[in-house]
């Protein structure tokens, strides 16, 4: 036990004391933060004001269409197509929409916008929305629905309130946040498994290639050496992670300060996938009355449970996979390329887990999600997607406990198997080791 601690301490200190550790730990979240800030900034900001002429020959709009922040519509009359084209060429407008006098409001004719340069997809949506709004209103009016009736229709609330039997509300804001939390935490565990798993593998390879393995193995059991390495690197991961969480929460608080009108601008804008969750949440936020709603939804999400489970599944998944990575590292000889082919059977379930996770985050109770969250090789990733939806909405308590028990059993199993492979392979030089041989070592009696 004491020796495992000695090995772990060396592994921990030799990594934490490196300059690169400080750099990656502090710079990485900063870079990610800046990256996301830039994405949000550019997707929110449209720098040019679009000036669009609407030649309403049919007089459908009654001389009135609402301009938006960055798109202004000008209603003009009595201009021919030629003169419109001419003014377009002279850059008097950025584009024009010609509504011919024959335009039938209830017909199937579509309007056309001509512009002298391509219009961005977000702006197109906005123009479409402006016309949808105004044309819809005109159509309703033409069906003899009065303005007052229309207003009352529009103001009546037909939004469905989702709730679960446990009495908690399950509105879209919460669903959106659960989705995002589940997705992000599942993905984080995926990344962690890979980063720290390969770190363990490279550590083992280094020891083998340096030829220090035999020196150490003569004073420490190979299993102790392996466990020490896994524990030490796991501790590095945990420390790194805590720093990241602190940094990310800190920076999150900074975000609204940097972009004060961010939420405001996001309203009604279809943002491309990167920001889709944030946009939806923001949209919802606006619709349902602002900050209080968001805070309510955040309160609905049990963060203590999520963070607790995250740490459990992070450690469990790490322990489960890192011993396998260690076994692979011990089997690699001079050629690091060998590692690639040996790694494949380990990376497959991780990738499989990510695929299940993307499904489970939408449907936390589907059969696939239940299987994925119980099976120890996939549960660290998949379970996070389900837990984000809460207990018992996303996952029942007994499923969670069973999954945890299976994970503990799973990592004890892989550690035991990997330990046997490691013990033999670490002293094996000059011979390429195949999976078949590793399997033989794993199952033979000691």
């Amino acid at each position: 036990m004491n020796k495992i601690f000695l090995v772990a301490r060396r592994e921990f200190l030799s990594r934490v004391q490196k300059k690169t550790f400080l750099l990656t730990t502090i710079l990485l979240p900063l870079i990610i933060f800046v990256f996301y800030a830039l994405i949000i900034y550019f997707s929110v900001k449209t720098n040019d004001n679009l000036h669009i002429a609407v030649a309403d020959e049919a007089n459908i709009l009654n001389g009135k269409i609402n301009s938006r922040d960055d798109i202004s519509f000008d209603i003009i009359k009595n201009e021919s197509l030629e003169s419109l084209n001419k003014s377009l060429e002279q850059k008097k407008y950025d584009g024009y929409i010609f509504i011919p006098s024959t335009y039938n409001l209830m017909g199937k004719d579509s309007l056309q916008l001509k512009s002298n340069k391509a219009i961005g997809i977000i702006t197109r949506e906005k123009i479409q929305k402006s016309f949808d709004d105004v044309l819809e209103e005109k159509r309703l009016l033409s069906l003899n629905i009065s303005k007052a009736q229309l207003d009352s229709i529009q103001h009546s609330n037909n939004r469905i309130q989702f709730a679960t039997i446990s009495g908690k509300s399950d509105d879209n804001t919460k669903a959106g946040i659960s989705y995002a939390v589940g997705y992000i935490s599942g993905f984080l565990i995926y990344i962690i498994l890979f980063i720290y798993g390969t770190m363990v593998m490279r550590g083992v390879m280094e020891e083998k290639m340096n030829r220090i393995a035999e020196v150490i193995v003569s004073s420490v059991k190979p299993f102790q050496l392996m466990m020490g390495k896994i524990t030490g690197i796991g501790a590095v991961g945990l420390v790194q992670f805590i720093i990241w969480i602190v940094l990310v929460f800190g920076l999150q608080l900074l975000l609204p300060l940097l972009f004060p009108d961010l939420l405001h601008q996001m309203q009604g804008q279809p943002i491309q996938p990167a920001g889709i969750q944030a946009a939806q949440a923001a949209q919802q936020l606006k619709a349902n009355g602002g900050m209080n709603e968001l805070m309510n939804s955040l309160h609905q999400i049990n963060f203590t449970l999520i963070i607790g489970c995250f740490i459990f599944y992070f450690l469990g998944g790490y322990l489960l996979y890192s011993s396998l990575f260690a076994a692979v590292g011990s089997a690699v000889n001079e050629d690091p390329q060998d590692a690639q082919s040996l790694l494949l059977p380990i990376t497959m379930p991780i990738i499989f887990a990510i695929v299940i996770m993307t499904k489970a985050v939408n449907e936390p109770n589907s059969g696939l999600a239940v299987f994925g969250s119980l099976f120890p090789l996939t549960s660290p990733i998949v379970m996070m997607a389900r837990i984000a939806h809460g207990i018992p909405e996303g996952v029942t308590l007994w499923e969670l406990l069973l999954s945890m028990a299976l994970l503990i059993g799973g990592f004890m199993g892989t550690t035991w198997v990997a330990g046997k492979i490691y013990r033999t392979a670490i002293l094996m030089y000059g011979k390429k080791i195949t999976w078949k041989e590793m399997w033989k070592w794993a199952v033979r009696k000691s």
Partner: protein
Amino acid sequence: MSKILELQQLRKYYATQKAVDDISFNITKGSIFGLLGPNGAGKTTLLRMITGIFYPDSGEIILDGKKFDPINDIVKIGYMPEERGLYKKMKIGEQALYLAQLKGLSRSEAMEKIKFWFSRLEMESWWNKKVEDLSKGMSQKLQFVITVLHEPKLIILDEPFSGLDPVNANLIKDEIYGLAQRGSTVIFSTHRMEQVEEICDHIVLMNLGKKILDGTVADVKQQFKENKFSIKLHEIPALTTNESFEIVDQKANAFTVKIKEGFRSNDVLQFFLQQNVTVEGFNEILPSLNDIFIQLVEGTKSVSRAFQPIQS
């Protein structure tokens, strides 16, 4: 003399080969013991069993009178494997400290011993250097210090002199003598016979996983002597043939003779003295360990890892 290590019918078979096949021998306390054998004879496997890295398939290892217990006895053993290395990026002082602590020394104990050995071998200035800055010979020296630091009762050195210049090799050799004098036992595995002849008290020769020779260096030489003598005469005598010997080699007035069975060295001397030739030198030629080694091993076609196949 009491025994530090007894091996009894030790066996270790790999999937297709017998790496160590029924080996027994004893090592006396305080002796310097040579374990010899060609490449792939099973020496490393045997040493790994003695150090507890491998478990024998059958047989007993008795260390210091008790059955060997790999977990607790590790501190009694210092092992310098042939495949040796150090963490390249770690500072030398820290590395020595770490490895000493792994052997079971406390931090302060380890510190004290490292300081002692570093000053003894003039390595104090190395403390903050990294291993990658050391030459091969220097890291070899460091490796030796790490092996003997915790004053083990049994020191096992696999090819300790490879890569050392003569000055450093002598330094290490003196340390080995010193350690033996202070009561440690040294097992010394090599295929450099001249070093064995110089250092070892007792040798065991292995080939194909089996012990083929066991004894003190002097005994072994006696066992393999061919009754050859070199004789140097003042002038070449008229008569050089006699029933008691035959001449194997002649270089001017120096002869190598082989004494025939039933005769003694005195018969040869008498023959020359009767002719009134001055004998300037006369001594027995004992075979070198190198010759014995080659004689025993040659023809067995052991290339590498040439253990005996298992007959099923």
